[in-house]
């Protein structure tokens, strides 16, 4: 089974044997890949009990909990990498979740759908309706995505909070796209972050 493209990027950049916390780990697909192929010590946090049960039944260590409320108990810098894939935009307080991620992990992977992708823009501009796309398949009233953001929003936020970008990848479908026009061309983005050591 092949990983979702953003997960594949993350999986390819976690060094073997690392300690990883996957926040919003779903049924543990990425954790399992990291464990089986790279000997990573992976732990997970997931809201949906059915997903947790599925992950535990794969032999993974996953705790049922909420990124908004259940990260506080994790000790500082207790993981090499904290991962938040496609979950930032569903948080009630995404800025605080990001802070927690960078406190718990020495590095953080964050991936999210880009609300400034041209399809989304066209849908709003010409249709005048909230976009329903491949990556944002839910309608306005049943979407879990309550804090839409764009690549440029995220970059501005990182600058404001003094977070360093170690690497970034931008995807349109399964294809990589450059960083320059990412805010227009990328359907989703993956950032590798760390706190600025000057902090």
């Amino acid at each position: 089974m092949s990983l979702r493209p953003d997960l594949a990027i993350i999986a390819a950049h976690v060094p073997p044997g690392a300690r990883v916390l996957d926040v919003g780990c779903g049924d543990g697909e990425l954790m399992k890949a990291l464990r089986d192929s790279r000997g990573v010590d992976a732990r997970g946090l997931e809201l949906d009990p059915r997903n947790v049960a599925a992950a535990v039944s794969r032999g993974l260590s996953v705790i049922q909990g909420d990124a908004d409320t259940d990260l506080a108990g994790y000790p500082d810098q207790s993981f090499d990498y904290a991962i938040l894939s496609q979950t930032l935009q569903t948080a009630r307080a995404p800025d605080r979740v990001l802070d927690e991620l960078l406190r718990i992990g020495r590095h953080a992977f964050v991936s999210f759908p880009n609300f400034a992708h041209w399809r989304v823009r066209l849908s709003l501009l010409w249709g005048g309706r909230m976009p329903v796309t491949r990556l944002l398949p839910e309608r306005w009233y049943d979407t879990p995505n309550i804090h839409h953001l764009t690549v440029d929003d995220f970059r501005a936020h990182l600058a404001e909070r003094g977070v360093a970008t170690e690497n970034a990848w931008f995807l349109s479908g399964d294809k990589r796209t450059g960083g320059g026009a990412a805010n227009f061309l990328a359907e989703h983005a993956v950032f590798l972050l760390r706190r600025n050591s000057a902090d």
Partner: protein
Amino acid sequence: MLTTPSSLDQRLGLSRHVVLPGPLRLDGGALLAPVEIAYETYGALAPDGDNALLICHALTGDHHVASAHPRTGKPGWWQRMVGPGRPIDTDRFFVICANVLGSCMGTSGPASADAATGRPYAMAFPVITIRDMVRAQALLLDHLGVARLAAVVGGSMGGMQALSWAATFPERLDACLVIASTARHTAQNIAFHEVGRQAIMADPNWAGGDYYDGSPPAAGLAVARMAAHITYLSEAGLTEKFGRRLQAREQKSFGFDADFQVESYLRHQGLAFTDRFDANSYLYITRAMDYFDLAEEHGGLLAHAFRAARARFCLVSFDTDWLYPTAESRAIVQALVAARAPASFVELSSPYGHDAFLLDSPELDRVVAGFLGTGA
């Protein structure tokens, strides 16, 4: 390590019983000697001894976890979970289940004969703790030649023992599975137990616990069981099962018979319980549960209880369990996270309240099998 083929080894099999010399030093300061333990084993210990799995039973349980009760003929209390090809797979694990200290199914308890007098201990039996139960189990494992446990598994009071195992013998444990349990008894938990104990002690037959030559305090023990039984069920479960329906009658009797089905059910549960359980054991075991506070044993911080733990943990709660609600499991999980222990936690949905852990639950089976590595 076992040297004899299991079929010849009298230590192994169903309805086993051993008298260990002890002495066992108890948390209360007393020494217990000898220590009798009733237990059962299933499956075979692997040559390298790495497949032993201990199941800890609940308050009124016994060691007949997956075999017919020798006296009543009823199936084992966790037969649906334990056996060949089951989530706790006896083809893979060497499963041990021992009757707890203080009980009345063959392990030393208040109904056992005091070696000093030849008569039942009654209230001269020392007050015990959950950790004492665990230490007695460790003695049994020594006797069986089991150095390490691949896993310890328990629901309700069995879960308390599993947690106590992780804190007391961290070096002997690889995995710890705790279902519908708690790291401490709350005021409400203690309160319900106190109602039960007072019902027993208010029964004139109790006679200060010294009733073994006469009639036992059956009425008091039945009331204790009735009160406790309510806490094992959910309000919605009771409503669905009984509602306000009347018992074998068309209208209310304007008397104090069991007019309602729920009354009749509870009376039956209480009465049936007195056939199989000793009232003094009920006092001692509920006391042990009330004394249980794993954080208190470790300087007030639950995370400290798991500092030396090397086991993987899995906690399961049920959304309608109000005896040991999800918040109690969450508190344990938070302590495990703070102690950086590998932990899983899931709250399963069930209409059946605390009792859910004993009932048919495919989700629980899947989690247990997966955590123990027997899943698909």
